[in-house]
């Protein structure tokens, strides 16, 4: 049996304290322990981006991060993007632009897209293409996804927040 460690962090704005096995990855903690299943397990080894979350505002693969490494940090998962006012600008853009087919890659792509928009609200299409290199999608051929993120850039220019 591996031992556990008590850690605390903010998850989608809520203070969270749990005990995690020290060899657990952050993705397993989020999905299996905290039961937030929006974040997906695709490859488990950094290739597909389905597990992308924000840690202190930075997009990372939760499958390649130790859960204990979340201690003291601020985590945002796909469940944390919508506000009482509704879906985020990028979530709306994904729906409006048909960027979702089977939907498996979508939470990861929306998190990565959100990160890119917050880093650089003036993203170009070239920036978007490079920025989603770490997210695999088997359905859309990426074009609709790129259009959705580009549309969000446009909405943000008009005053929306990423």
């Amino acid at each position: 049996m591996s031992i556990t460690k008590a850690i605390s962090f903010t998850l989608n704005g809520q203070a969270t304290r749990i005990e995690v096995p020290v060899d657990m990855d952050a993705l397993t903690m989020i999905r299996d322990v905290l039961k937030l299943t929006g974040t997906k397990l695709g490859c488990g080894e950094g290739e597909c981006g389905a597990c992308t979350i924000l840690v202190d505002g930075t997009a990372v693969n939760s499958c390649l991060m130790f859960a204990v490494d979340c201690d003291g940090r601020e985590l945002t998962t796909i469940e944390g993007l919508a506000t009482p006012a509704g879906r985020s600008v990028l979530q709306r853009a994904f729906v409006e632009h048909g960027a979702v087919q089977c939907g498996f890659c979508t939470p990861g792509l929306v998190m990565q897209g959100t990160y890119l928009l917050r880093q650089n609200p003036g993203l170009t299409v070239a920036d978007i293409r490079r920025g989603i290199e770490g997210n695999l999608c088997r359905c859309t051929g990426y074009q609709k996804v790129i259009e959705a993120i580009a549309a969000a850039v446009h909405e943000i220019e008009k005053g929306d927040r990423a």
Partner: protein
Amino acid sequence: MKPFAYIRPGTLEDAARQLGGRGAVGCAGGTDLLDRMKERIEAPRILVDLKGALDARIELVDGGQALRIGAAATLAAVAGSPLVLKHFPALVRAVETAATPQIRNLGTIGGNLCQRPRCWYFRARDFECMRRGGRGCYAQEGENRYHAVFGNELCAITHPSNAAPALLAYDATLGLGGAGETRRLSIHEFFVGCDEDVQRENILEAGTLVTEIRLALPAASVRAAYAELKEKQSNDWALVSVAVVLEPGDAGLRRAAVALGHVAPVPMRMPEVEAYLEHKVLTPEVAARAGELATAHATPLAQNGYKVQLIRVLVKRALLEAAGR
């Protein structure tokens, strides 16, 4: 055996002491280590988080003569640093094409230099090859299209780091610390070939860490380039990478540094190519000849002969790019 402890020491000395424990393994971003644990080829008993003992600063030091990169700086931080871009553009190019944006946000430059090989036999639990302490090399007769074309007689891994060839071409110095004395080591003495020890990729002993990378600022006239080819042009490992640093002289090149990555168990400088380039004017013919010379001692395996041609093309391409042609 699963890990039974996680420790986050706050100082280098403490980290070194903890790493001296049986089964202790250091972890920076964890992107390489966690992957090996998932493949069950690594089973630490003690995880020592190195982030409290290392720093992530990127700054000018030595009165503005050198650039210092703390080993815990992420690849994204290095790629995004205006200081690094201004003085060491080939290093930026090398790290910004490594892995994916998310991995670059987690993975550190120290971890990039110390990551273990990506040979698919090495990463698969069932293949106990000589690098894992077993016998033989499965790649020699097996699936070897991504393997080494130099120095591959015993084990045919390619060193996976993108940063390494760039740092080699820039003659970087590494700061080592932790167990033993704190010292500086030329990057040329850091990597270990198979003939020396087939079970390790660098000289680090347990408890010794890379603490920093130092680079002397080049003269303003120095030009550099990094070129690589991948099977897919995004989210993939380089098949071959080349970093070049050129110092122009009055007639032709005063000095040229040419380094290859992903073609041998260690990143390699190419002294014969460099000697040939000295005092030459970099025409396309000269660059092509340099590419030829770079492959003179290649010993490709059954499936990776194509890498020899990639080396020719990329050496030429990187040289011409650096020369602005």
